[in-house]
């Protein structure tokens, strides 16, 4: 089983990296872009010792306690077999 965790800056937090990328894309002529936000992506491979329900709980804990700083970031994740 794999877990895919996406960490992004909260909407209220400025993202200078995303802003710079947005500016660059615009300069290169790409169209239709309103905003770019940069985040982090983690792919966790689980060892099979956890049920789906347990994996859900454990991955949520990892994302909340370690992978994100709740002051500035939020996360979402999904599990796949």
């Amino acid at each position, binding site marked *: 089983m794999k877990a895919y965790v996406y960490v992004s800056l909260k909407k*209220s*937090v*400025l993202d*200078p*990296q995303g802003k*710079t990328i947005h500016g660059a894309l615009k300069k290169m002529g790409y169209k239709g872009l309103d905003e770019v936000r940069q985040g982090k992506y983690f792919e966790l491979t689980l060892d099979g010792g956890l049920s789906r329900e347990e994996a859900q709980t454990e991955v949520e804990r990892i994302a909340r306690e*370690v992978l994100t*700083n709740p*002051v*500035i970031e939020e996360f979402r994740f999904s599990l796949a077999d």
Partner: protein
Amino acid sequence: MKFGVIIFPGSNCDHDAHWTLQQVARQPVTFLWHESHDLEGCDAVIVPGGFAFGDYLRTGAIAKFSPVMESVRRFADGGGLVLGICNGFQILCESGLLPGALLRNTGLKYVCKPVQVRVENVATPFTNACSQGEVLTIPIGHMEGNYFCDPATLDQLHRENRVVFRYSTEGGEISASANPNGSLDNIAGICSAGGNVVGMMPHPERASEPALGGVDGMKIFDSMVGAMAGR
């Protein structure tokens, strides 16, 4: 009065802080390894600069789980003096000992240069040797020094006079051009509600001897020594 300087894997200003306290401030000082819970009877703890655990995930994200940080939390809860410098400030924020977080500099560049900070609160054990509004020249060296917190926390920090240092011009003016990293309200350092925990991005240990180009940083350490002597 004994100082302790914590060492995490990746700390790199630990020896500078140790040197400053021992050779310049002439105080007893010991290193504290991050895996130990034992603060060895220290009266003040320095969380030094560097790149604890490489800062690979986030600055301070892994360091906050080190055993020594549990002891530092208890020590701080009991009123003990804790000074977090640069990466140490980031670690104290991650640990929840100070509010807010340090984001990537808005200019997206590592900034390493002497800056001016205005002392906003001289009633802390870290600034009692300064005068109100005094401008200190102390170097910074960081990629993530952009202080951020939510608006309610920012209000509270101002209301409780917990903003200790703000980036300013040499004349003491708080301006956008004096802000090296995009910090909210030019914040360079804050303290805990009790005033006994301070985090600051500038490195006072790098401004502690004439040979380093300035001695303004000594005011921080001298303040701590004075505060502890008065206890």
